[in-house]
């Protein structure tokens, strides 16, 4: 402890220089934590969105994602009920939702457009929470009867294209599994936006039973398994796959292409930023320690004359660099904490990402493990930078060091 005390005194010796070196380290630490925190928040948000959109796990026919179908529902799932029943007794499973993907034409009687439809159970809207930004009306009600007109929820662009309002009737036409053309009338229950203009021009939701009738099938395209805990996905993947070896089980991240591309992009951008910050700290500390060692050449000669080994002299300087690194890291954590809190309070928004029309909150996810790892790395970088400077500075002979002016 006595050596640490002396190292601390030496850090305070040139307080102004030490302060600015600590400040550089703190700024680097803050930059790394804030940018990484933003990336972490983005990753978690996108992961949650991806899992919410598609389900934590998706059960399909093994060729569903790989091969093109010759006729609708060629690679659909039939007899999935036993899987559903087994999954629903599992406490960790929130819901099991069958879906039908279909496409066809939508018409208002005067104009026709292409649609990409999803046939879902009405409970999907409760399970997934407010995943659609409803602009008018409401999601599918789930009320079905023989004489009731089935409901459709249209994306904003498609509704505009059809000049459809809530309560209007539209016709959906699709090819059935046996190749015929089928058409049903639907009443517009609601209008929503996904935030992605290209999707808004084509997408709609109808209830699963209507979708089955429209394309004349008893199969479903996929079954989405929703878990209460996103982090349990990997663990659950194997157990769900073991239920039936004739189906394929795909975790959310394999289908989350947007998530993957954003993660890859952010990893590159923030990784490069991190490397630049680390280099900044390295050269800053190296410069500071070089000046310190040069200024203290006579002192080095004195303690070497008194019997201090070169390794011990270097160790003392490394302790000083370590103190600077730790002080900078602590200051950086505090500043990053303040920035995180300030952004929460201010509620700033990021501009819409490419392909989207909606911004998202500028939020930092403060991660203690990340803070600890970054602190350790920056402190190590400080020590390594000091080692380089001190090693070179301690090369003088004792007699040269003692006569240094």
């Amino acid at each position, binding site marked *: 402890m*006595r050596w640490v005390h002396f190292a601390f005194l030496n850090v305070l*010796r040139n307080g102004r220089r030490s302060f600015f070196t600590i400040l550089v380290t703190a700024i680097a630490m803050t930059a790394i934590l804030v940018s990484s925190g933003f990336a972490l928040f983005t990753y978690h948000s996108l992961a949650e969105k991806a899992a919410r959109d598609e389900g934590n796990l998706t059960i399909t026919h093994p060729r569903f994602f790989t091969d093109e179908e010759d006729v609708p529902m060629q690679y659909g799932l039939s007899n999935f009920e036993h899987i559903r029943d087994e999954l629903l007794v599992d406490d960790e499973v929130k819901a099991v939702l069958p879906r039908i993907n279909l496409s066809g034409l939508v018409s208002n009687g005067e104009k026709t457009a292409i649609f990409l439809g999803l046939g879902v159970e009405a409970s999907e809207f409760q399970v997934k929470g407010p995943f659609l930004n409803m602009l008018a009306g409401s999601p599918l009600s789930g009320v079905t009867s023989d004489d009731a007109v089935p409901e459709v929820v249209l994306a904003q662009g498609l509704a505009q294209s059809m000049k459809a309002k809530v309560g209007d009737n539209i016709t959906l036409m699709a090819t059935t599994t046996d190749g015929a053309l089928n058409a049903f009338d639907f009443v517009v229950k609601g209008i929503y936006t996904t935030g992605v203009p290209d999707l808004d021009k084509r997408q709609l939701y109808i209830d699963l039973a209507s979708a089955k009738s429209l394309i004349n099938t008893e199969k479903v395209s996929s079954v989405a398994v929703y878990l209460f805990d996103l982090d349990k996905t990997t663990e659950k993947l194997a157990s769900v796959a073991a239920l039936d070896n004739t189906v394929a089980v795909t975790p959310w991240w394999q289908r989350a292409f947007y998530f993957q591309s954003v993660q890859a992009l952010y990893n590159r951008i923030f990784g490069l930023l991190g490397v630049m910050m680390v280099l900044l700290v390295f050269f800053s500390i190296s410069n500071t320690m070089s000046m310190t060692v040069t200024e203290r050449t*006579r*002192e080095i000669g004195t303690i*070497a004359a*008194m*019997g*201090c080994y070169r390794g*011990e002299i270097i160790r003392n300087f490394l302790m000083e660099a370590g103190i600077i690194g730790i002080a900078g890291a602590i200051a950086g954590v505090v500043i990053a904490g303040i920035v995180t809190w300030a952004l929460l309070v201010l509620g700033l928004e990021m501009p819409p990402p490419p392909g989207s029309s909606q911004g998202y909150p500028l939020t930092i996810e403060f991660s203690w493990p990340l803070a600890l790892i970054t602190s350790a790395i920056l402190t190590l970088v400080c020590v390594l930078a000091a080692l380089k400077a001190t090693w070179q500075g301690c090369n003088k*002979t004792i007699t040269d060091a003692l006569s240094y002016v």
Partner: protein
Amino acid sequence: MLRFANLTKSYLTGTTEVQALKGVSAHIEQGSTVALCGPSGSGKSTLLNICGLLDPDYQGELYLGGELVPANAQALTSIRREKIGFIFQRYNLIPVMSAFENIEYPLLMLGISKAERYERVARMIDAVGLGKFAKQRPDRLSGGQQQRVAIARALVKEPRLVIADEPTANLDTPTAHLVIDLMRDLGREVGSTFIIATHDHRMTDRCDRVIELSDGHLTEQTKPALQLAWG
């Protein structure tokens, strides 16, 4: 205690080889105080550095406590740490440390326990009359006080040999006398041998022996007049 035989040392100044020591031999008794005198360039700093094991690059033989001094740098550092104290002309105290901490430093290097360190430092700082200044940093002390701290630092580990390089050069006469007497008294108490490079007659008058160097040769070894008069 310290014996050197045929010490030769040369170095290059530009392209010219300068012989700083030319086959110097002498024997210094345990517990004696020896002044090393001579004009600038006579080789006294070179001899002092060799005797203090600061410069291992020489020809000849050097014996400390009857043992041939090794050439290995680690071994030399170990000997300096345990057996040699240094007093410098410009005191060379560590500016961020208090007087107490400066004196404590050599004991810390020797791995002595905290209790013993504190006891020995307190005794030594009292012996040099700076008990009241124990917590003061060097920049708050006068030149004489700083040199007294340096003496305490050199002697606190009770070394067999103390190397002093012009220890009174920057001090006024009363302070120089104080410092010289302190070195002699504490040196005798501890049983250390002193080798002091000096031009200062105030210093040489109080030494047991004066070794004169001139042009790399040891020319004279005398007992100073004051010592002779004391008989």
